[in-house]
């Protein structure tokens, strides 16, 4: 396991990008120097007992001493986070989990992000060098689109208000991207989306890694709270420690 640390990090900025999505930058020099694409941090959004648990967020990008998160307001914790201002301090625990594998032998990286599932990709993209990158991203509607830090984007919206009408998976399937053994897919988004992608990749025998979410208590492998079924055997895997990035054929959604 990574040697985890806690940094009390000063907020550099916390900007609203869409109605519900924010971009947060904090000073975390140690975590910034160690964290890898696809890993995540566990953030305490309040100094009090409420909310009690930390909230997991993927590393979105690293800028020198700053780490960047892209997050969506969905509940009490993210609401509190959205109110934080420059200069306030957040307790950040990280780096957590295993990131994407992007050193293997591929020529085209296909990024697939559903909604806030785009969050981990800016940092991944920055770290993939000398390869072709295509990003397929999907959102509920035009106003919710966030392509911060992404490259070569194709868009889909549920209501067709921008790009293809449909999901990012529909989009990905509809484009006649050349898929072969030199293609690697990196995906993140809601479970139903990942599930359909996993089936597709099994059928077509494609190389694919997915980043999963799960309710978590600790984020570093001690509570056993974040399990996902393993495809290989009858055991569970821990999203926080064995993941959050899994090979598509490792897990059952």
């Amino acid at each position, binding site marked *: *396991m990574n040697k985890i640390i806690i940094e009390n990090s000063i907020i550099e900025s916390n900007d609203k990008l869409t109605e519900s999505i924010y971009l947060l930058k904090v000073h975390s020099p140690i975590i910034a120097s160690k964290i890898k694409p696809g890993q995540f941090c566990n953030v305490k959004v309040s100094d009090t007992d409420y909310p*009690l648990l930390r909230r997991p967020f993927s590393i979105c990008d690293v800028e020198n001493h700053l780490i960047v998160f892209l997050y969506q307001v969905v509940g009490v914790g993210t609401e509190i986070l959205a109110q934080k201002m420059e200069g306030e301090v957040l307790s950040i625990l990280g780096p957590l989990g295993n990131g994407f594998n992007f050193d293997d032998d591929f020529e085209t990286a296909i990024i697939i992000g559903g909604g806030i599932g785009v969050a981990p990709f800016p940092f991944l993209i920055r770290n993939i060098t000398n390869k072709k990158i295509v990003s397929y991203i999907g959102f509920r509607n035009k106003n919710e689109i966030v392509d911060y830090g992404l490259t070569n984007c194709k868009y889909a919206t549920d209501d067709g208000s921008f790009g293809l009408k449909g999901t990012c998976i529909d989009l990905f399937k509809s484009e006649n991207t050349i898929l072969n053994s030199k293609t690697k897919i990196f995906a993140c988004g809601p479970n139903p989306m990942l599930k359909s992608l996993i089936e597709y990749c099994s059928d077509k025998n494609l190389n694919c890694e997915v980043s999963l979410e799960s*309710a*978590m208590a600790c*984020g570093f492998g*001690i509570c056993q709270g*974040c399990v996902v079924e393993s495809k290989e055997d009858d055991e*569970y895997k821990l999203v926080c*420690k064995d993941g959050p990035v899994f090979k598509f054929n490792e897990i059952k959604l």
Partner: protein
Amino acid sequence: MEIDLSVNIGKLKLCNPIVLASGTVGYGEEVANFLDLSKIGAIITKSISLKPRRGNSPQRIVETSSGMLNAIGLANVGLDEFVKTKIPILEKLNSNVICNIAASSIEEYVECTKALNEFEIIKAFEINVSCPNVKEGGLIFGNDLTAVGKITSEIRVATNKTIIIKLSPNNSNIAEFAKVVKQEGGDAVSAINTLIGTAFDIYTKKPILKNITGGLSGPAIKPVALAKVLEISRSVDIPIIGLGGIMNWKDVVEFMIVGASAVQIGTVNFINPFAAYEIIDGLIKYCKNNSIINISQLTGTYQI
């Protein structure tokens, strides 16, 4: 002034009263990556059962106001695997190890204890008779005085090591349970395990935990845990390891005042994996400021 933080629980000597609670420290291995376990009173393993347990289907965790519900379902590698792969690791950790055992029959408790008794690294057994998250075992025993007495006496035969019975808060007479433990030769009790709770999704109408109910832990339960420890300490003369909702050194002092000889910290480890260190520092300062030379002097000093 040199502060002596060491405390005794039966034959078991702890360098300080902070013990990492079962289910919140795995088998020690992961936390040893970032904590020097020799600096911590003891660690208690995740409950071990005779056979491996896969645990409950997810979702296993849900947060509540100042608390959390878990329904892990005693997921564990099982006795054999524990002996084979986990004990060798534990032996290298330089930690005081208490082994927590869960079972669905008295025989199973005894069998596990016997099998583990020979390992020197295991300094004491904590017997979980109070897990709310499994169908067999667990609470069926925890709220049954006769069963707890029987389990204690039979385990007493199986080991000379310190026996700690972990009591359920989900009944009206926890002190009676502590009495029975003492009578039947138990060395100490841990109080409390989690309270039974649940949470539902108001749109799907389904329980958020696949197991339907879970165990409530965290600061929300601290007042209840303190009352249970006080209840025991006012009526039974047995060492108590207090736990339930401890977040900081002040909480630890509160538990010791009401009667705990040592404490365990659970949920807080998820939020602050370095909590044990901070608590120990805080205790030293408190002792200094209040002229307490041996922290064990604090136990049961309530003024009622």
